[in-house]
């Protein structure tokens, strides 16, 4: 599981090595998290940079066993304070279809169109539901893990997930 979990004692303060390990372990999921919220890879990377910089500044008071949650808190605050809500446009790279040959060019176009619509639907979804939905589907996190990351209850995760699924279903059905 978490690289830093499993310690018996709660340690306060991280050193350079610990900082590097923190980065190595959580840089990607943090970037994903802000991407799910912003739909902008550059913003996501800027926030990741600033988040880790901030953690470095306050390294002496960072508790090892809550460091991961702290990263999410800082990233979330940075994002919320800095960026006004704007119209999102996702540009997920689609890889699954590269391993297949399409029956026909028309069919390939149809799938790509479905994919485009899906990305638009995701962009239109309520932010809280979207974050939970994508953490579960793309990062394969369990509801339990998501709840911990976002500091919400498992019940809340389930609720948001249900909303997300309904939304996707509704919107896609309307379009196809």
């Amino acid at each position, binding site marked *: 599981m978490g690289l830093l979990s499993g310690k018996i004692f709660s340690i306060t303060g991280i050193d350079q090595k610990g900082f590097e390990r923190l980065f190595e372990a959580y840089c990607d999921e943090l970037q994903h998290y802000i991407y799910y919220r912003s739909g902008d*890879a550059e913003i996501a990377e800027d926030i990741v940079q600033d988040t880790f*910089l901030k953690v470095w500044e306050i390294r002496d008071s960072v508790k090892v066993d809550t460091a991961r949650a702290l990263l999410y808190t*800082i990233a979330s605050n*940075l994002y919320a*304070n800095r960026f006004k809500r704007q119209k999102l446009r996702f540009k997920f*790279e689609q890889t699954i279809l590269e391993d297949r040959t399409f029956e026909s060019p028309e069919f390939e176009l149809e799938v790509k169109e479905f994919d485009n619509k*899906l990305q638009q639907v995701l962009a239109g979804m309520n932010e809280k539901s979207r974050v939970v939905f994508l953490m579960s*589907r793309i990062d394969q996190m369990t509801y339990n893990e998501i709840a911990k990351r976002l500091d919400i209850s498992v019940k809340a995760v389930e609720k948001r997930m249900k909303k997300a699924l309904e939304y996707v279903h509704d919107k896609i059905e309307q379009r196809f």
Partner: protein
Amino acid sequence: MDIRNENMNKPKFSKTDFDKLSVGEKTNLLISGYHVPQKQAKATTFEIIRQRIEQGEQIQETAKRHLNIYWAAASIAVIALAATFYFNVIISQAKVVFAERGRHVEYTLPDGSEIKINSDSKISYSANKFGQNRELNLSGEAYFSVKKGAPFVVKTSIGKVEVLGTTFNVFSREKDFHVSCNTGKVRVSVGAQTVTIEPGEKVVWVDGVLKKSSFTDEDGKAGWTIGKFRFDNIPLISIFDEIERQFNVKISATGIENRYFTGSFSNTKLNEVLETVCLPMNLEYDIKDGNKVNVKPKDK
């Protein structure tokens, strides 16, 4: 490999199979192939963070002049929530990119313009203002390839360089300031003096005057960007300064005052470079601990 063969090994994806799937299943299938786009490699991100730490950059609260009460209350709540760790709720949009001694850094600005930053040099700009106002600060040396568009301004401690879209090199260290133009047109100003240079021309700040002259550069761009250093009658002391920056070494030299060097070297090996410079100047050198260099006149 033949493309058709490769395709034959891949499973066929048919419309009938796809149509059999429910909306939820189609969604799952497509989402399972999603990758979050990344603009840069993880190692690069870490490198930037490391540099920003080295720079002593701090994430601080600078904005928020127009807080309304609601937001003030909200941020107090946030601060209270995370008080142990987290006092400043933040907005620093200052970007600093630094090439330390012994390194060059390549960097792309938000407008797509590219910069090569020479050793021991730094650029900084405001990320939130750069969109409206292409302006940055430079200390040290950098080579710019500017995307066409609104005026692009480089400010240094001595002067200002303005262009529309072009490639040019700026060197600004202590009292030395020179700019060379490779393509397009570059306007250089110090105080009230302004000089415009075109490709193949350079301008040097000497004794309080901007002097224009021509330069030749075989490669069509600043040599240092490809690891070649050419010097045309430059004080020897400046040459050793450059070697210190390129190799991150400390050089103490005697007998080099008021002497000038013309020649070139590439930044591959320290001892070769020292050889290239010392031999014609009748100097000798020794290297201690890998990073301390002593240079003195050759014993007669």
